[in-house]
């Protein structure tokens, strides 16, 4: 049992280290801070050949070229934002794995929340109406109704 726990713990610790399959040793920058920024940017850029992988994960030629490009521009002193802008100008927003927040993407970002709110409002309105109907059923009887009931009960007795 103890061995199993140790093995699981080792897996948890080592798993993140196994993530960098595609980045080749020759690509890695000497400056660890710069390399960390490069990795960070690469994880957010889509490999357009494979479309659902980041360039950090992909072995495609284009992904490698883009990784090298990102590192070159960082080394030249550009900010993360500048590097990402350089790639977006050429490939469009689609290259970003996380779509940017802007008027054309408001529906994408806020649509689900809006649908949830609308659905919630509909449910609340439905429940309110139902309780209101149930309440109105127990309203006090009118004089007319009371006289009718008494008459019916009297009939039963006789």
């Amino acid at each position, binding site marked *: 049992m103890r061995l199993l726990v140790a093995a699981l713990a080792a897996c948890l610790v080592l798993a993140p280290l196994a993530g960098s399959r595609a980045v080749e040793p020759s690509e890695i920058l000497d400056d660890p801070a710069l390399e960390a920024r490069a990795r960070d940017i690469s994880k957010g850029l889509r490999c*357009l*050949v494979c*479309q659902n992988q980041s360039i950090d994960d992909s072995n495609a*030629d*284009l992904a490698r*070229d*883009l990784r*090298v*490009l990102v590192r070159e521009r960082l080394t030249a002193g550009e900010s993360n934002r500048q590097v990402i802008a350089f790639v*977006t*100008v*050429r*490939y*469009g*927003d*689609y290259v970003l794995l996380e779509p940017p927040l802007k008027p054309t993407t408001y529906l994408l970002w806020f649509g689900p929340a809006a649908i949830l709110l609308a659905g919630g409002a509909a449910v609340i309105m439905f429940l309110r109406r139902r309780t209101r109907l149930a309440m109105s059923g127990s309203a006090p009887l009118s004089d007319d109704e009371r006289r009718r009931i008494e008459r019916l009960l009297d009939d039963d007795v006789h």
Partner: protein
Amino acid sequence: MRLSYMLPVAAFVGLAAVFGFYLYQVSAGGKNIRDIPSALIDKPAPEFSLAPIEGRNDGFATSDLAGKVSLVNVFASWCLPCRVEHPILMRLADEGVPIFGINIRDKPEDARRFLDQLGNPYRRIGADNNGRVSIDWGVYGYPETFIVDRGGRIRYKKIGPIMPRDLDEKIRPILERLGS
């Protein structure tokens, strides 16, 4: 029938219409859902200057595109679909359409053999050995073909091989409209 009961029906019809429209585009319209709209349409062609394929003496730079409507084709000898569209490029070249080539990540001897065997439809070819100029053009699939107008602006991009249908329905009409 109360209006609120119609709401789910209306939502369903609306969604079905949207999905149906896209399905129609894919099946009947010949639209490839993997194609990503180019960010560079109507933008000036990138500034670049490429050396020729080793053993040739042309090379290709932005200035070559000045003052005419031309096709820019990204190709490589290792790219199978490039061979599929090659006869169409040859035909366009015969008709006098200026076609320029960007040869991407190719071995010089392979590229030269490709041109020798299949014919050379290109006025000038640049060798993009590290893929950097192709990135400037926003290229991600091979082949890719751009139409550049007289003013040096990119007006159209075809991802993948040019098929006869693309030639008749897109490329020829655009060339005509731009007055090639």
